[in-house]
């Protein structure tokens, strides 16, 4: 009777130790809360146009432009002073900008000014 109780207590203790060890091994411990991944939106540059030409995003969103065209392009804010301005993007190069304030951000390609787009941040 006594022996059986000891075995039961030892088993319970082992299980508790195992739980503690397992929880300690997890990345964030017991308080493991998943942080929401920052929102990202991709704008493709192809065939002398931005696609989609207008994107509406929430504050804090990162917009990434990727040049899928065969020729170089830029992404330059129309506002003065310029909110953002990329270097010349060759094929498959990217440019990202995080919009921290609400507003409407028109932009264009300075190599081909007829290429225009808008980011609306709400």
């Amino acid at each position, binding site marked *: 009777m006594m022996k059986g109780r000891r075995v039961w207590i030892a088993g319970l203790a082992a299980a508790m130790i195992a739980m503690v060890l397992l929880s300690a091994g997890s990345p964030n411990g017991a308080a493991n809360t998943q942080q929401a991944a920052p929102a990202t939106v991709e704008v493709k540059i192809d*065939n*002398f*146009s931005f696609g989609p030409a207008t994107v509406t995003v929430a504050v804090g969103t990162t917009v990434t432009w990727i040049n899928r065209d*065969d*020729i*170089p392009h*830029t992404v330059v804010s129309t506002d003065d002073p310029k909110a953002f*301005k990329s*270097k*010349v993007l*060759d094929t498959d190069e990217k440019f990202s900008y995080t919009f921290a304030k609400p507003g409407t951000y028109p932009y264009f390609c*300075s*190599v*081909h*000014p*007829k290429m*225009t787009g808008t980011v609306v941040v709400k």
Partner: protein
Amino acid sequence: MSINPFDIKSALLAKHAQHVVLIHFPIALFLGAVAFDYLAQCKKNRTLVEAVYFNLLLAAISTVPVVATGLAAWQWALEGQKLKGILLMHLILGCVSSALIWLVFWIHWRVRRHPGQSLPKYRLPIEALAVLIVGLTGHLGGFLSGVNGPG
């Protein structure tokens, strides 16, 4: 947003527009001059040589604003950032084209100062090379501007 084709002010003051307009003058004048020069060489025609000289003069002069506006577009549109790829190749070939046009003009100008002299035959391969480089530069320029591409 559409562009009004009759909005002269916008067209003239656009920070990139002058180069793509002006570039057609030296290209046309130089290609015409070379065509006339080859014809003059075959026909031994002095009148054509005169036409070649003035075409080359105007072609060489017109390269000055073309190079200037090209460099200005680089500064204005791209804020002078380091170029690479097609843009860099276009810049280098453009400068080489301009130098070759001036070289061909200089050969003709030097001979013209001495009426007894005839034009050296070595100018013909130089002119052919210059036509090739000018054509390549123009092709790259058209590609960059979207004229030679799907846009």
